[in-house]
């Protein structure tokens, strides 16, 4: 167990490689109850969300889900999060736990300024179990006897005779659902899924799985000092909505950025880690923000901010891994499944 944003979190149960493989080939589950939840409701909800979130919230239908950045006025990424539209003017935001308090304060400030909207911290109301893998939906449907929403949709249900939300989202690149359930019944639901053969997975596998598919981790690959454009998240920014930071994001999109976040693979031995310098022609030209050993590809992989002229897939660079220069190649997203 390790401390993580005030929670005691398991890095692994049986082993990261086994857990990783279970999610890629069968079904694994993660207790991600540390994630924060914020409810947004009221006649001004849409106008408020358009102002604070980077994506075009007007495109989210009832029962829909959308990924967004929460930016500051400079376009820096305060958090990245999922928005679910639960009904008419009722939405749920799922935050990263380390940012939950700051997100709440930020959202509260803007909600008071814009009005007609209530922002409520409902993190204590939900435990969150992510069940992921090619068989995840089958097992959840069979075990809990509930209908599941399609990918990128959210549905209400009763689980353990309590109201619950089922989200067709995840952080692994596999199909699956995230269950937002009453914390009181969470241990029983976990046990039922365990008995049904779902493999418990820890933070370690969560990191290797998300990195193989190049999903960002806030605090590593995204920070308030980086804008969504350099992070490769221009696709979730609709500057036309006039969100906080839109001007800066528009400028970055128009003028380009000095650095760009890219995935890479090590060619040969060596496992890159956060903070390792990226070298081009022997000079530092970037820095690794996430690095690990890929259990699927059996090679070191990572993401790094590099000088934009080096960001083209196929570009050869070196990663300075604890003083040893390891040849690496810039790749395209996702790293898994491998192309060709």
């Amino acid at each position: 167990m390790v401390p993580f944003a005030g929670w005691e979190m398991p890095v692994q149960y049986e082993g990261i490689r086994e857990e990783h493989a279970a999610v890629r080939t069968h079904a694994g589950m993660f207790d991600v109850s540390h994630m924060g939840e914020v409810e947004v409701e009221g006649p001004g909800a849409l106008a408020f969300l358009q102002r604070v979130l980077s994506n075009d919230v007007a495109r989210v239908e009832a029962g829909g889900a959308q990924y967004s950045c929460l930016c500051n006025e400079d376009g820096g990424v305060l958090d990245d999060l999922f928005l679910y539209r639960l009904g008419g003017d009722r939405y749920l935001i799922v935050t990263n736990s380390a940012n939950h308090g700051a997100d709440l304060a930020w959202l509260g400030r803007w909600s008071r300024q814009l009005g007609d909207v209530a922002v409520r911290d409902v993190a204590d109301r939900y435990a969150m179990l992510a069940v992921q893998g090619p068989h995840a939906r089958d097992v959840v449907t069979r075990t809990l006897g509930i209908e599941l929403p399609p990918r990128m949709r959210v549905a209400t249900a009763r689980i353990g005779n309590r109201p619950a939300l089922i989200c067709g989202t995840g952080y692994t690149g596999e199909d699956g659902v995230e269950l937002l359930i009453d914390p009181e019944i969470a241990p029983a639901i976990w046990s039922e899924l365990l008995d049904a053969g779902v493999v418990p997975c820890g933070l370690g596998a969560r990191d290797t799985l998300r990195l193989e598919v190049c999903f960002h981790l806030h605090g590593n690959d995204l920070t308030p000092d980086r804008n969504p454009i350099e992070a490769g998240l221009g696709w979730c920014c609709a500057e036309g909505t006039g969100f906080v930071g839109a001007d800066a994001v528009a400028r970055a999109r128009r003028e380009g950025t000095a650095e760009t976040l890219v995935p890479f693979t090590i060619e040969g031995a060596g496992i890159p880690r956060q903070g390792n310098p990226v070298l081009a022609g022997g000079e530092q030209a970037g820095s690794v923000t996430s690095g690990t050993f890929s259990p699927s590809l059996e090679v070191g992989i990572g993401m790094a901010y590099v000088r934009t002229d080096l960001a083209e897939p196929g570009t050869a660079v070196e990663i300075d891994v604890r003083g040893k220069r390891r040849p690496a190649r810039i790749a395209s997203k996702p790293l898994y499944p491998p192309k060709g």
Partner: protein
Amino acid sequence: MTLAEPTYPDDLRYHDQHDWARIEGEVATFGITWYAQDSLGEVVFYDPPEAGSIVEKDATYAEVESVKAVSDVIAPLSGEIVEVNEALADAPEKINEDPYGDGWLVKVRLTDPGEAEQLLGAADYVALLG
């Protein structure tokens, strides 16, 4: 998979940084203990030193790396490396599966065999683990 139960053979000498030495005359075999491999998790990479290089007692001579972390390997004794376990390049998981056998790391010609007196016996090492 990995050895399920903690094991600390009596014929080895132990360094408190979780390394072992099997001393046979003036040559010793080094490796990491059950505790070390268990703490590290599945080893996916072993970066061996070169044969002929000098290792110093209590200093780092190699790295073992699992998915989650990298760890320095400390030399329990001083000497010159005479052999490295090449098989680990393709099968680093042997360090987990058989830490005292196929998972050995290097063989070292000792320059000061007397240093062994500073190492721990199995019982004392186990006591240290608490």
